[in-house]
């Protein structure tokens, strides 16, 4: 085997600093490429290569200053915020666990299409409020719904589905997702003038409990 006498050969070379310089001068290219290949093998074993994340550069800050746990209180707060854009995407909303107060709160800000007991199954919902006015609201049961279009200087895309099919309770502004994206009602409060996301929250209604995620 070629590596059998390597130790003796190295000893016979009597490697001092001068010798090392000579070896490096002679084999600098081989040494550099051996190190590069060695590094590549190490990287492959550790799989450390990460893709560059560039979309995040454009992502707006999410302030999330509010800490309301009750859904009806939260909606009441929103009803007073006329300067913001309020984007809602409901995913698999189960009305069996939706309280009368919660429903009334939503209806009070203009989403009158929602009525308790009307639905036998879960529903999907998309709603948009701009400066206090409802500019879009749509419901679905089995199929998917979406809204896409300009919102001032931005492009808005909201999608929702009624049943457990595709996990689509998403709210995108300029192709960047700001919603928490899970079952229940996803709300994004957007301050377009200051280019800030004031809040992004998810209310999930399961077995009579309300889980809040930010």
């Amino acid at each position, binding site marked *: *085997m*070629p590596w059998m006498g390597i130790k003796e050969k190295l000893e016979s070379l009597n490697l001092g600093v001068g010798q090392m310089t000579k070896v490096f001068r002679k084999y600098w*290219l*081989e040494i550099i*490429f051996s190190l*590069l*290949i060695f590094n*590549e*093998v190490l*990287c*492959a*074993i550790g*799989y450390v*290569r990460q*893709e*560059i994340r*560039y*979309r995040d*550069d*454009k992502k707006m800050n999410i302030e999330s200053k509010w800490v309301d746990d009750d859904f009806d209180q939260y909606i009441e707060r929103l009803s007073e915020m006329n300067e913001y854009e309020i984007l809602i995407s409901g995913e698999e909303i189960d009305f069996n666990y939706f309280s009368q107060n919660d429903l009334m709160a939503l209806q009070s800000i203009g989403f009158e299409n929602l009525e308790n007991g009307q639905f036998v199954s879960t529903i999907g919902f998309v709603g948009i409020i701009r400066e206090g006015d409802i500019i879009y609201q749509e419901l679905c049961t089995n199929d998917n719904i*979406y809204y*896409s279009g*300009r919102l001032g*200087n*931005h*492009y808005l*895309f909201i999608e929702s589905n009624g049943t457990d099919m595709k996990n689509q309770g998403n709210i*995108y502004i*300029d*192709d*960047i*997702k700001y919603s928490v994206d899970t079952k229940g009602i996803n709300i994004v409060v957007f301050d377009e003038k200051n280019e800030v996301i004031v809040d992004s929250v998810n209310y999930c209604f399961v077995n009579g409990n309300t889980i809040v995620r930010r």
Partner: protein
Amino acid sequence: MNHRKYLLPGVIAITHWLICQIFGIDRLFFFYEGISYAYILVKFLFLIFLVAGWEFLFYVVTKVKKGDEEFRWGVLYFVLYFLFTICIIIIIWPGAWAWDDLYTLLNISGYKSLDPWHHVFTGTYQAILLQLLPFPTGILILQNMIISGCVSFVILKMEMLFGLKRTRNPFVILLKFLPFMFPPVFAVQFSGYRMGIYVYVELLFLTMLISNQKFLKNNSYIYLLFFSFICILVSVWRTESFFYFICACFLILVSDKGFMSFAKKLITIFLIVMGFFFTSLWQKTELKNNDYMLINFVNPCIELVRYSNVISDEKELYSIDKVLDLDVIHRNPQLTGERMYWYKNLKKTYTKQEYKEFLRAFIKLCIKYPKVFIAERWNTFLRGVELSEKGFLNLYGAARLYDDNDKNEAMKLVKEKGWIGIKPISREIRKKVISWGMGINEKGQDIHIYRRLSWNIVIPMLIILYIWIKSLTQRKWNLFIIFSALIIKIPIVFWIEPEGNTQYFLIFGMGYIILSGYIIKLLDNHNKNQNNKVKLN
């Protein structure tokens, strides 16, 4: 000149061709009634293929009978490798077909098209092979026969270049064959993707250039014709390889007068240039529009659109919207451009002027947001060389092809055709072997270290880069020019690859062939030293 030796194989080839036509062998695969231009072209090229094949067979048999050492070893290497590939084909029967390659089969099956999307060369080549063995796996059998010929040629030239001793030691023979089992290359040679054959033709071409240090030492007209043919194939078949044509023409021009007369130089360059332009024109005419070029820019373009500002970049976005539907882009924020192109009607109907404006707008956005463009390209490159976790392999589709729940639309259409030999011998074994080949265990999880090392393209790429720089420092200009044509593919592919796929960098597997040559030479030298020591003692 003895012309009689060409007569017998020529007659056999013509008879063979006539028998195929009389018995309508091709009708086992092709469904047609009228005669189209594709039909006439394929039949004509099939005749040429048979004549060349029979002539070559007789030539090799004569050489072997005369006891030519090089040819005898060549036949041995050919047989060993071909038998090995046949075993693989039987295990994974009917092959590692995945998606696009199945559509190529479907598109060419009526002689109505040569499937220009995957290049007219691909459709023509497969249609010719199907004349001989008219079932999908027939392509793979003949393809691997051609590949075995290339492998045998490359090994012989490797022995010549490194001054290796020929030995029947199975360990040394295995070491010589090992680079030709490089998983990314091995995966495509059992599929109908053009890269399966292309990478070996490319290897053959580079070996022909490298092995003749004085360039075109063997300059008979038949050799020059064959060289020109290979050069055209390699330069035109893949967009990023057009530098080979420039490189070959330059090397012919500067080659030594003693080896090639000026007239022969002119004839060869003329053949290559004409062949290059006419075949490129043929492909362009068949494509009919710019869609094929468009898909190269779709991924970075979509990322730029997503990053751009709807107000300040309004003009550029307007131009892009004429070709790619902006609404579709914004409605699918989670999809890549390529996925949207195929599944979401991203592309609009556009005019030539609109396409030009689209390109201008795209370039403007690239200049305005260079980070986005470079980052997107870099991520795609990482996937392409199998360094990123998100690397995409066609083998995923190939492994699942016979699963009960597989939704491969192309395969459904193939099954409807009723071609012979499309059922696997064992579904389970086929799936396991293909999955293992791409580094996936029985539970469907990646075997990380195996996958990252065996599919890693950067390691052989570094070896090629080393030789390129070494040839520059040692002023070996022929080698430097040849390897430059290879190295220049890296930035071209970086710029235009539509998706992160290992296929675009397969030729860099050549680095392992060179490495194996060095290792065998080291072993040879070591053995020589040992023997000398024994003699001295």
